[in-house]
């Protein structure tokens, strides 16, 4: 009887311990990524202009890899997003006689929410994971120590180009994605005989856009880019790694980056409500 009473208690205490440990581990990771962020920002500031002939081509390479090469994927997603949003809502808006809200809907859903988040997640999936593997392998094979031995700052050579490249690319891709989604939204409306002229549709969008949208879109995409690049570089480089640990580091990066993006998204929703 005593044993039966003890079982729920031990299950409860075990669960609480598990939650507590998980929470502490998360806090420790946040703390370490915070420290890594400060170190990276310090290097960006103090080494701006140092070894430009080596670091600038690396930045260009990262922008090409994350931005230019992902443009077709992002354009396709933007096109599909515009189609889906207008396609799903146009019938509903027509029923209630509120087709004049199409523009507002696109601004709210695409510009404020899905555009930046989709661009960030595409970059994470296509480039971020590859970058963790690349950096993790470099770490495991001792290339980081080799850089140090040659007097090259690994943060400056490996992290700064990815930090700048991913940040700039996510901003640019989000803008492209939004433009394509808005355009494809009108195309769908036109195909569906939505009683709305292009000028009216784009006029609605222009009217729905506020200056805060431009400011917060910029801030949001830059935050996503910084966050993703720092999480990727932290898990790839910041701690000693063996080759067999690279796959675990990659899955951990994806999980933490997605949670981080959703968290940032939540903060920006609060900011929109406050403005």
């Amino acid at each position, binding site marked *: 009887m005593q044993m039966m009473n003890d079982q729920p208690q031990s299950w409860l205490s075990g669960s609480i311990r598990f939650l507590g440990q998980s929470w502490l581990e998360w806090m420790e990771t946040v703390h370490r990524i915070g420290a890594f962020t400060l170190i990276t920002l310090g290097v960006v500031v103090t080494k701006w202009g*140092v*070894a*430009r*002939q*080596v670091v600038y081509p690396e930045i260009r390479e990262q922008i090409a890899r994350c931005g230019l090469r992902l443009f077709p994927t992002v354009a396709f997603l933007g096109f599909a997003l515009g189609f889906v949003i207008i396609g799903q809502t146009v019938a509903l808006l027509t029923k209630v006689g509120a087709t004049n809200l199409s523009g507002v809907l696109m601004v709210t859903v695409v510009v404020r929410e899905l555009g930046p988040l989709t661009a960030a997640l595409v970059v994470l999936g296509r480039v971020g994971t590859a970058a963790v593997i*690349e950096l993790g*392998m*470099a770490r495991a*094979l*001792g*290339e980081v*120590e*080799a850089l*140090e*031995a*040659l*007097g*090259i*700052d690994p943060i400056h*050579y490996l992290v700064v180009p990815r930090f700048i490249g991913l940040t700039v690319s996510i901003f640019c891709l989000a803008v492209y994605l939004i433009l394509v989604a808005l355009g494809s939204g009108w195309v769908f409306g036109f195909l569906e005989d939505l009683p709305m002229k292009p000028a009216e549709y784009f006029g609605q969008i222009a009217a729905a856009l506020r200056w805060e949208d431009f400011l917060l879109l910029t801030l949001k995409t830059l935050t996503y880019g910084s966050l993703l690049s720092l999480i990727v570089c932290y898990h790839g480089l910041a701690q*000693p790694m063996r080759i067999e640990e690279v796959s675990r580091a990659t899955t951990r990066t994806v999980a933490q980056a997605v949670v981080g993006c959703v968290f940032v998204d939540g903060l920006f929703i609060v900011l929109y409500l406050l403005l």
Partner: protein
Amino acid sequence: MGDMSRDWALPKPAPVLELVDAAIARPQEPEAALLSDIQLRVDTGDFCVVAGLQGSGKTVLLEVAAGLQPLLHGHLRLFGEPVTRAEGDSFRSIRRRIGTVFEGGGRLFQRLTVEENVSLPLRYQRDLRIEDVAADIAEVMEVCGIGRLVGIPASRLAKGWQLRVALARALSLKPELLLLDNPFASLDSVHTVWWRTFLLDLVRGHAFFGGVPRTLVVMCDDLRPWVRLGKRFSVVSSGRWRTLGDQAAVLEDTDPTVRALLVEDL
């Protein structure tokens, strides 16, 4: 008169590398001493060989000597400068005077080509494009016998050639001190002969360095190829450091580890 001659005597130059009462630890176990009581003094033009069986801590010792890992305790001086914290730009300027060739494939940057690997330190330190350092790189690659490997990705090379590229990369900044981690471990006989000749040239004064002798510190797990090359020898065994002395001292030493490193009684 005797006092006068003492007054006029030139001060003895500071050692290139000095480890005093030092202990080192693996990065994975930073609190546990892997090797203790290290007393190493390397002067200009020395050719020091540190021998030890696998897992005795030679690679960690090399990384500590290069300032890549911290000491557990004790003192490290490089070119007379105490190294208290192996970080920061001031220490990086000291590091540029040290060339390091790691074991195996030399830890080349796998995504880069041979000439990109060799030119990277020079381009980074001098802020130059690869075209601007082409002549310097061609020279060092020719010296290391890898001139024909231009354009080949480092990852496609055999270990012996990778190590030569790593040597060229380390020499590109014309270091005063060269640290080598078990360079003969993965070489065939042709590469080994080339390395022996080249290292002797470096200690005597290679034309690439204007005939000025370089200082070498080599870690190895087999003393046989080194016993006729090195000038001063030490051995690491069971977590302890022991200075052996010159070639004759090594050959006369009766310690079982030294005999094993000379592959006797095996």
